[in-house]
């Protein structure tokens, strides 16, 4: 990035290739069976189940997250005892929402899934799953540092990765990387 010039926005497709392909969903039989199981287990909640490449993707409402995670972990058919990843994707520019993504895996049944929920800006809050998987604690702290998503009920709310006096949420797309003055 050259100082003085506005940054090239790499997220806007260039005019030469206006056609953007989409990777088609390629679920395995195990994944399809899992999709069916999830829709059974979570029939009381408002969910929508899709597929991204080879992962079953389940979009839920933010307030239900903790209960759904507990059901998924303790349910004998799903048994998602291993939480791999908790991350936040910033869609604030296009859709005015932050998407919280959980990657879950079951060692017993060898199936995996993505659990997604969307929150919007003025107070992006999601119930914490640190009570379900203890390993979620640090992820939640980090996502709060970088994106500002607050996880209600998380055991520790101190900053993790950033210095304590840091202002702003550097993970977000609208964070002014070029105009940031360190001194």
């Amino acid at each position: 990035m050259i100082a003085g010039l506005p940054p090239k926005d790499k997220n806007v497709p260039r005019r030469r290739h206006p056609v953007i392909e989409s990777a088609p969903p390629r679920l395995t039989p195990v994944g399809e069976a899992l999709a069916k199981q999830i829709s059974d287990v979570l029939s009381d909640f408002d969910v929508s189940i899709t597929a991204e490449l080879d992962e079953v993707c389940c979009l839920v409402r933010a307030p239900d997250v903790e209960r759904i995670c507990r059901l998924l972990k303790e349910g004998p058919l799903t048994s998602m005892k291993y939480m791999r990843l908790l991350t936040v994707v910033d869609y604030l520019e296009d859709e005015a929402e932050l998407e919280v993504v959980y990657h879950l895996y079951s060692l017993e049944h060898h199936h995996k899934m993505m659990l997604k929920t969307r929150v919007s800006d003025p107070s992006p809050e999601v119930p914490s799953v640190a009570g379900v998987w203890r390993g979620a604690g640090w992820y939640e702290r980090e996502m709060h540092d970088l994106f500002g998503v607050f996880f209600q009920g998380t055991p520790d709310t101190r900053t993790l990765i950033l210095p304590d006096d840091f202002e702003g949420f550097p993970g977000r797309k609208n964070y002014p990387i070029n105009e940031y003055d360190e001194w």
Partner: protein
Amino acid sequence: MKQRDTLDTRAAKGVPGRTVDMMINIGPQHPATHGVFRMVLTVDGERVIDAVPHIGYLHRGSEKLCEYEDYAQIITLFDRLDYVANFNNELVLVMAVEKLMGLEVPERAAYIRMLMCELNRITSHLLFIGTFALDTGAITPVLYNFRDRERIQALFESVSGARMMHNYFRVGGVKEDLPDQFNERLESALSEIEDGVDEVDRLLSTNEIFLERTKGVARIDGVSALDWGLSGPCLRASGVPYDVRTEEPYLLYERVDFGVPVGSQGDCWDRYYTRVLEVKESIRIVRQIMCQMAPGEVQTKTRRIVRPPQGEVYAHAENPRGDFGVYIVSKGNDSPYRLKVRPPSYCNLQALPQLVVGHYLADAIVVLGTLDIVLGEVDR
């Protein structure tokens, strides 16, 4: 837990001295913390009552940087995440992009990738054994292990041009083929490394003092380990036989025969010895790869600047430290819309308070050693 008075707070209140707990800062600058890592321990005499890890000293904003670079540049960033196991990191990134694009990698390239990753596993574990021995006080094994690492790093230099930050894997294969006489050099290095590992094994593993320091120290059971998200040798030492190479085989791991060490006690010795056995298994895998590898192409033709289709992908592999994963959200451009790294050391380090509380101060250092963290990965 209840706030206990420290010497400082009591002095501030003007209360005369009494036996209190002491807060010790194993600071960012310390010979035993394997990087810039800070641990604040509250000790009662020599027993640790509370442990609070502080990370973030090496945070470089790699994930944010990836949103502004194209995939070939991101490979160099990934080299520097877990800077001890560079090839394994690069592998996960290129696997993720290839999965998104539906790209098939030529067989020789897959074998070369496997070879490099296993050799890197050997170097990483040798580093662990050496520094762990140093934490317990044995000052010699680290130098024997570094001698063996040098042999492998010379091979890496001949293949990729660099001893550590290789930038060798590409989306679609590897950058170029192996140099001449690689097989002979590899075989001679392997035989010497086998002897070296046996030597260190004999020196340490059954040594009475080493056993006293590590046996029964900081046990963690399998269910807690899974709950914390541990992976890799730390998880396997607790009895959970989870290895990504066998659960979701990637590259050509189905074609090679290897064993996976699984412990039963979940204490420091088990975490150490699983890694020693893994070195020996990696040597076995490397020998099989050398027999199975056949001449061929090493890179599938792709555009110079790779542009994967729109979509989301999660790819992971078995790093020496655990289950290293990458989640990429792509909008069809040269660079990812969002890239998130799942570092195994980050998850392993979360379990540190549970492991350390209740043990001695000297054990805290030993436990930190067995978790085998690399701060580049933890902080990104």
